[in-house]
């Protein structure tokens, strides 16, 4: 939580945060222009203006931080937008597409600037395309004036303000002061033009000055003083014509407070608050439980106060969650870029339709959603969409549409990615799965079960590997990532109409639904997201293989049994009681394990507390939580638990 006292570094990081917003605004504006260009509608000047201002602000800030590549490229884009704004060019669809690609490159340059890495080159054709749109780019700031190196002639300056100088808010006195600072001597006022008082117009100008400046002064230095007034005064500088001012690099490290309608807070501060609120919630539930165990009358005034406290705690928890929440929009916009690049590489025209971009979710969820979504978009383009020719034959528009939507449903974030392609070819999926030995030849599978084969590790229908979504990285990776986030994934597909993948994700990773279970007298929590089914162990069809290994039949398939207490070394295998429960879980890789516990106690929302410091990494345990009675319960990682060596074959695991 310590803060380096470097306001400039803060400004710099603030600039990159602002850039993200500006790039988003630019993207929005360009998307609107794209729609207008396609409908051959007139472009809305305000939309062009918004895009221009976004690029302009990026350029301005980039200049301040010395990001020259970003300044240069932003300037080129800005020039085109400026010409658009003036109506000098009417954008065609391909021009807007070029601008969108340019915006992508701007984003790259911003990222490179933020990371401090070298500026990447723009994709082929972008710079030439931009240059072709605007003949003769606007000149940037004129080059600095140069002076003869060793000129020992002093300067003679004559300066006579016009009336307009005063009207513009300039004040000759300050200019003379600045000249005096440069070492001006022999300053003489020429009041020959001064009329008699009766004829004097107080808003006119009658005075002029002559002065001498040392020979060592550069013309540019003197010129800079008159920069604001050269058009509203008569000025002569003998020895050299006035030149442009030069800029000198400098630093500023001041401290002042800016007035803004919002404040930016370091993420770790919010996380700390989140953590404290978690502690508060735990303590509050401990308090509630111990008071009720102590025989507190449920109708007493104290009980009512406690009720209020419970409600307040929950409200605080919710509002801290919303602080970490961010709209999915920037993530979705990045997907637009993935789509454009993939579509270009595959030669399949496609557009991205976004819905519900304002939907908010915890930023960790957003960050970890990027890779799976990217993979799914590539898959949708590569496998979902037909080639343009095939689409035309099927009576569809040549351009495919990928729809990405987000919404809150039942306390979860639902993200759907749909294409209007050919739909899943279930016969082909089945054949591929059989060929790869993922299912038996005669396995009876419904449509939904067939679709789920896509998520099996090693599954692929690709005859040849494409650069886009092949190379052995399949949908199982997506499934793994989503499961790790506590999410679920489902598929809907209709032949000839398209396929939609539906992701259901928790709104935050800091709390989760857990099933509290008991094994060998200890409390554990099994993440509800990982649970498929629970059943009494005694009632199940069970096949044993020696003392250690056993399988149970659940949901039509055999799953390995894993006695939680035995796997963690708390007892030897085969000591489960008659009332033991089997919990069928599915791990991130899709593998199923039946966890055996002594009893299921409760199902509730728990606050996840990471295990840190001296605990190191506990195999089979993902984190911990504190229960209402103050006891600590470890949160199980079913997938890892199943892979632990059995108590007879490996070292025993010590558990607190």
């Amino acid at each position, binding site marked *: 939580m310590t803060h380096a006292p470097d306001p400039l570094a803060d*400004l710099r990081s603030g600039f990159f945060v602002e850039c993200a917003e500006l790039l988003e605004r630019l993207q929005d504006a360009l998307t609107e222009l794209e729609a207008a260009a396609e409908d051959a509608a007139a472009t809305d000047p305000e939309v062009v203006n918004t895009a221009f*201002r976004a690029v302009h*602000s990026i350029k301005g800030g980039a*200049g*301040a931080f010395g990001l020259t590549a970003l300044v240069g490229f932003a300037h080129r884009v800005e020039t085109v937008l400026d010409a658009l704004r003036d109506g000098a060019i009417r954008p065609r669809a391909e021009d807007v597409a070029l601008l969108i690609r340019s915006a992508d490159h701007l984003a790259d340059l911003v990222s490179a600037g933020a990371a401090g890495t070298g500026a990447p080159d723009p994709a082929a054709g972008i710079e030439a395309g931009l240059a072709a749109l605007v003949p003769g780019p*606007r000149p940037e700031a004129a080059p600095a004036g140069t002076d003869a190196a060793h000129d020992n002639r002093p300067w003679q300056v004559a300066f006579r303000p016009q009336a307009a100088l005063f009207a513009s808010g300039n*004040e000759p006195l300050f200019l003379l002061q*600045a000249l005096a600072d440069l070492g001006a001597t022999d300053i003489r006022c020429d009041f020959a033009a001064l009329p008699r008082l009766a004829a004097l117009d107080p808003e006119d100008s009658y005075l002029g000055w002559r002065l001498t400046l040392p020979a060592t002064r550069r013309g540019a230095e003197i010129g800079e003083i008159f920069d604001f007034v050269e058009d*509203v005064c008569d000025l002569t500088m003998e020895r050299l014509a006035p030149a442009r001012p030069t800029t000198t690099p400098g630093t500023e490290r001041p401290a002042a407070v800016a007035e803004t309608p919002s404040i930016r807070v370091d993420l770790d501060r919010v996380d700390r608050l989140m953590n404290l609120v978690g502690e508060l919630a735990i303590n509050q539930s401990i308090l509630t439980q111990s008071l009720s165990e102590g025989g507190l009358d449920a109708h007493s005034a104290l009980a009512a106060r406690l009720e209020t406290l419970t409600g307040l705690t929950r409200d605080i928890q919710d509002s801290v969650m919303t602080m970490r929440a961010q709209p999915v929009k920037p993530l979705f916009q990045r997907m637009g870029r993935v789509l454009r690049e993939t579509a270009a590489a595959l030669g399949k025209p496609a557009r991205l339709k976004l819905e519900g971009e304002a939907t908010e979710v915890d930023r960790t969820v957003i960050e970890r959603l990027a890779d799976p979504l990217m993979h799914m978009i590539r898959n949708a383009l590569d496998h979902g969409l037909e080639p343009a020719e095939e689409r035309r034959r099927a009576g569809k528009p040549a351009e495919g549409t990928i729809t990405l939507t987000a919404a809150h449903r039942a306390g979860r974030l639902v993200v759907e990615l749909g294409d209007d392609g050919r739909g899943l070819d279930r016969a082909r999926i089945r054949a591929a799965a059989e060929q790869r030995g993922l299912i038996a030849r005669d396995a009876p599978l419904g449509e939904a079960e067939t679709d789920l084969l896509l998520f099996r590790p090693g599954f692929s229908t690709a005859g040849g590997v494409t650069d886009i979504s092949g190379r052995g990285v399949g949908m199982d990776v997506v499934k793994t990532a989503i499961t790790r986030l506590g999410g679920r994934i489902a598929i809907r597909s209709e032949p000839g109409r398209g396929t939609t993948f539906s992701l259901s994700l928790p709104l935050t990773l800091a709390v989760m639904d857990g099933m509290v279970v008991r094994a060998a007298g200890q409390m554990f929590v099994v993440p509800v997201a990982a649970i498929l089914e629970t059943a009494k162990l005694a009632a199940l069809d069970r096949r044993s293989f020696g003392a250690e290994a056993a399988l149970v039949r659940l949901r039509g398939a055999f799953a390995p049994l894993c006695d939680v207490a035995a796997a963690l070394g708390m007892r030897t295998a085969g000591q489960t009681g008659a009332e033991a429960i089997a919990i069928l879980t599915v791990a991130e890789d899709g593998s199923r394990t039946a966890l055996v516990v002594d009893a299921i106690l409760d199902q509730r929302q728990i606050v996840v507390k990471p295990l840190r410091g001296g605990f190191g990494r506990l195999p089979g345990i993902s984190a911990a939580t504190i229960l209402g009675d103050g006891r600590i319960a470890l949160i199980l990682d079913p997938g890892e638990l199943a892979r632990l060596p059995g108590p007879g074959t490996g070292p025993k695991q010590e558990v607190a």
Partner: protein
Amino acid sequence: MGLNILAVDDSRTMRDMLALALGEAGYTVRLAEDGQDALDVLGDFTPDAIISDINMPRLDGFGFVEAVRRIERYRATPILVLTTESAPELKARARAAGATGWIVKPFDAPKLVRALQMVAG
């Protein structure tokens, strides 16, 4: 020193930079996000000089300067416009609107202070 400055820019980074640079130099700074916002600020804050960006939503720098010049007590208040180009036509437009001078971005604190001293002492 100790002059009151109104700084107007729609970019948060720019506003932060202006506030830092001017604050360090001993000026008292008020910030506004665009021309409209700045005109509202002028109701209860009387600056000795104004620094304004040109490209802004709602009311841009040219419009803002023109509006300020129409207010009697700000007829002679120095107004510097922030621009990324030193193109002559831009300066001419700013001057026509009533601007006192301009600061070409990127600027550093000394350059900003020098420009202010030139117009406001």
